[in-house]
């Protein structure tokens, strides 16, 4: 198992920097203290009792070695980290892990770290111990303890892998008040199917991919109605492309009309042009990442202008039951508060073949109110 700690992850959060990318010095100046080593230790504490046949490969010092030593685990340092570590060190350390034929890479950090790790790991599964300022990506466990639980289950061969999105927010824009999340890629991560983990009596297929297939087959059927379909980014929607036999842009927005791809990787302007030409249009989107955002994260091309042209009633939300289970409600943050309000309320979410659930959709502004 590869084990990596991003020692500066999360430092910007408490001092109001909304992230730590390129701002470690500033964060330290503002008095930020490292948070990730403690999160990593909490996960390791919960991993005690892991059999002796598990070997950790790690990077030196703060990047993993110190916490593993303090918690008494067997490890081997395969990358010598410099004093001031950065993104490049995360990537190089992961490459060194990959040379050792590891089964899993566990990292402790935030969305930025997830991006660095996923950028080099390919098919090797990764799992995040949450320690960042922002954790939109689907590779994060909900807590260090939950991460330990997933690691144990995976190493025992009890858990499946799923593909999930790696998302990061442009921090410089975020600091100036613009939240622009981008989908950077995909990674495989172990998961415990939420549907069967607590309540065994709710029996159902626990294979998330099977639900994605079901959704895609159903979509391919209802898409025969002559409307143009604007299809958002993500793994669930990309399955629709696979069923239709077209190459759906995984990280972008495409338009499909009568089974044909009429606009690939569309910008907002492209979408508005398409809407000028077609009679009816509908939008299919899926929540992205771990926090249940259907709008405002990942597919910004589907702008308020596009949404208003298509009409809120023609927005079709699709999601696996697993994903819905992870989040108490779905969130919209289109940038147009009035539109967000129109999209809120109990909405049907397609969860399988001819199957839907009712889920509460909320504007982010409402959620803040609720949480206060």
């Amino acid at each position: 198992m590869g084990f990596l700690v991003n020692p500066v992850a999360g430092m910007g959060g408490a001092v109001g920097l909304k992230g730590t990318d390129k701002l470690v010095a500033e964060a330290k100046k503002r008095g930020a203290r490292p948070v990730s080593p403690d999160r990593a230790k909490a996960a390791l504490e919960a991993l005690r009792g892991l059999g002796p046949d598990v070997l950790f490969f790690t990077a030196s010092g703060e990047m993993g070695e110190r916490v593993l030593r303090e918690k008494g685990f067997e490890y081997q340092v395969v990358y010598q980290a410099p004093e001031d570590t950065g993104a490049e060190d995360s990537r190089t350390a992961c490459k060194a892990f990959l040379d050792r034929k590891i089964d899993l890479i566990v990292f402790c950090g935030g969305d930025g770290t997830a991006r660095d790790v996923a950028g080099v790991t390919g098919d090797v599964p990764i799992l995040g111990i949450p320690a960042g300022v922002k954790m939109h990506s689907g590779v994060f466990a909900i807590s260090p303890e939950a991460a330990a639980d997933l690691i144990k289950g995976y190493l025992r061969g009890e858990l499946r892998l799923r593909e999930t999105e790696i998302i990061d927010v442009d921090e410089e824009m975020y600091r100036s008040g613009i939240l622009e999340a981008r989908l950077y890629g995909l990674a495989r991560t172990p998961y415990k199917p939420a549907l069967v983990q607590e309540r065994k009596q709710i029996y159902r297929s626990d294979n998330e991919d099977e639900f994605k297939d079901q959704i895609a087959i159903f979509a391919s059927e209802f898409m025969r109605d002559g409307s143009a379909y604007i299809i958002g980014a993500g793994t669930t929607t990309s399955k629709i492309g696979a069923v239709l036999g077209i190459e759906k842009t995984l990280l972008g927005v495409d338009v499909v009309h009568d089974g044909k791809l009429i606009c690939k990787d569309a910008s907002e302007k492209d979408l508005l042009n398409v809407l000028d030409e077609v009679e009816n249009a509908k939008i299919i989107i899926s929540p992205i990442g771990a926090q249940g955002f259907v709008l405002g994260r990942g597919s910004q091309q589907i702008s308020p202008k596009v949404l208003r042209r298509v009409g809120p009633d023609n927005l079709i939300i699709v999601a696996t039951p697993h994903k819905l289970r992870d989040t108490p409600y779905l969130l919209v943050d289109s940038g147009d508060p009035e539109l967000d309000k129109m999209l809120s309320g109990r909405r049907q979410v397609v969860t399988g073949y001819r199957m839907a659930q009712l889920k509460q959709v909320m504007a982010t502004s409402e959620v803040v109110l609720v949480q206060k």
Partner: protein
Amino acid sequence: MRTKIILDEEEIPKKWYNVAADLPTPLDPVLNPATGKPLDPKDLEPIFPKGLIKQELSTERWIDIPEEVRDIYRLWRPTPLYRAHRLEKVLNTPARIYYKYEGVSPAGSHKPNTAIPQAYYNMKEGVERIATETGAGQWGSGLSLATALFGIECRVYMVRASYDQKPYRRSMMRAWGAECIASPSNLTESGRAVLKDHPDTSGSLGIAISEAVEDAATHDNTNYALGSVLNHVLTHQSVEGLELKKQFELTDDYPDVIYGCVGGGSNYPGVCFPFIPDKLKDKKDLRMVACEPTACPTLTKGLYAYDFGDTAQLTPLLKMYTLGHDFVPPAIHAGGLRYHGDAPLLCNLVHDGIIEAQAFHQNEVFEAATIFTRSEGILPAPESSHAIKPAIDEARECKKTGEKKTIVIALSGHGHFDLSSYDAYHDGTLEDYEYPAELVKQSLAKLPKL
């Protein structure tokens, strides 16, 4: 102030009521899928006894109940009609709420009302073994009881979702000497075909029916039995409604509305069909409302058309409301209501506007069930609770308007095997499913016509 309205054993009906005699629109015939022509009754003989086939096709209004069957009915019939004084008080309503309770049968539901006569006619014709399916386990329990009483072997294919949810239903069937198998199973061609593509499937009633029919068709000594949908089943269940009418004669009351849950449609028609002549001939102002889950809204969202009764297309074609024989409903806790179609007799009356239909989400249904349990004491089955929900709504409406309506709930069974579902509700982990009717309509509109 009486709470239970109870009839004497001698008042167990001597005849069943067959609504086919009183339908304004005649029932569309059952079709042979191979020829597209009405089914030859002989085609049914390999899997049903002649006595039941005769009832299935009968348009006689009254059918004699054999004494041997009435003798067994005495074990729990007549079932009580309760006046829900305590529920009325909790709701603070001027409405009068009654419930006809079938949970007092040995199997805990209305199912033995037809299981007993079905096993009887099979026994009379020398059948040694019966294969059947069960959704929530109520029919499987009912038939296991009946076959035990008549010395017939019984195998029950139980929908996988329920098999895992309700292990004690299995124990009950076993106690009566029946064999209970999770469906889809690898014991039949139909089961193996489904498992090949969907090894993790939660199963469905449609798949389980395919397995049981195949089992009966491929074993010489074996017949098939169905706990719902078919005409003879609904006729047997009429004992409920016939008793209910007599019970109302003992009060100064008459129903304004009767609510009952519908999965395949046997309990509810059993309760309300005997009131059909009152409504049609005597012009009684009586509403009858069939209640179903939004996750499987056959009557409210389905298409009125010919369709197969099972997934593997082994049954004849039935004219009914259907969501499509290939529809596998989500694993809601009212397992007994997860069926893609409904009884043709019931569908006929719904289509003619004589019976209404409404659909409800499972969380609101459990909420209503909880109000009922905490006032009346009885813990109702999740299926039956679909009728409690609108009854409570109606009673609350009466509170607003001041109307003194008489509301009847057809309470088909108890929920003693559904406690894990109650736990899930109280833990807040039940999802509300909804059938995406508009999108399905959209997907069917452009389908190539065969």
